[in-house]
């Protein structure tokens, strides 16, 4: 498999390449639940296939080996006025929150009870508001960035 000529492989093209090469690991585990949201057009009825649309921008960590991700991580070195769009979804009007926190905690081997001090980095956030889904309709929703 050769993906070095793919400048911005999306998840779909990347998975297609992997699947054709027969090398994808845990393919059955790759997709999260479909995004649900309340439809304004449906007066509050659930629209179970209201997929979100990703922001057009982002970055490619580990290029050329990994996918392009539609996400702009926060950096302490960037002034607030110069940040890139902190939302992961486009066609969106609402509140967003994003964090970049590092700290520590305790890992526990639940088989033996052994504890280990560990470090963590939490890049987490939320989006809450209205958006145009991939179905072209207007929806309201609350989403966590996990």
């Amino acid at each position, binding site marked *: 498999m050769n993906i070095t000529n793919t400048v911005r492989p999306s998840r779909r093209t990347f998975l297609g390449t992997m699947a054709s090469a027969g090398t*994808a*690991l*845990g*393919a059955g*585990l790759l997709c*999260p639940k*479909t*995004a649900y949201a309340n439809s304004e057009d449906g007066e509050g009825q659930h629209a179970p296939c209201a*997929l*979100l649309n*990703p*922001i057009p*921008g982002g970055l490619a*960590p*580990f290029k050329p*080996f*990994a*996918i392009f*991700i*539609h*996400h702009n991580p*926060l950096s*302490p070195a960037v002034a*607030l006025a110069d*940040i890139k*769009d902190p*939302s*992961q979804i*486009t*066609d*969106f009007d609402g*509140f*967003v*929150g*994003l*964090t*970049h*926190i*590092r*700290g*520590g*905690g*305790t890992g*526990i*081997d639940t088989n033996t009870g052994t504890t280990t*001090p*560990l*470090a963590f980095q*939490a890049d*987490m*956030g*939320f*989006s*809450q508001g209205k958006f*145009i889904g991939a179905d072209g309709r207007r929806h309201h929703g*609350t*989403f*966590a*960035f*996990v």
Partner: protein
Amino acid sequence: MYTGPAGSANLTEQIHDYNVHIDSNDVFWMVRVPHEAVRVDFDDARASLRVQGVPVFDDHDLANSLTFGLGLPGDLGFPYPAIAPTAPVRATVSFDVEWNGAVATAQIHNDAQQFKGFFLSTGATINWSAEQPGFRFQSETPDPTRNLVSVLGHEQNGVFFG
């Protein structure tokens, strides 16, 4: 999660990477949560995100998450370490994130990225835990000094940018 000292985040020391995976429309790590999970008091520069038992995947490390378990070769002239391939396992996470108090504010109108809004740089804390077969993690007591940068915003992008 990393084996290094608290506050560190070196890829070669990463042993857990929890996320909900990219969805079928290429949206990055977003999952619907109940409306009540998020509370925003934007005028007071406060918000919270509280969720219990969110089903996630543990991809072991960021490199495996973004290569769908293929890892990194580490020997082809690119500035990345070798990371062994690892398949994801199921886990759950619970978290309580709080944004608290404006440090800076900015009105942004970004034509190139088609987004605008009013943004706050804020303090933030997190209390979170993870659980999976054979392993559990509990973060330290929420510590405001651990925040590197956090942002709240009221924004419009895409078709709402105009």
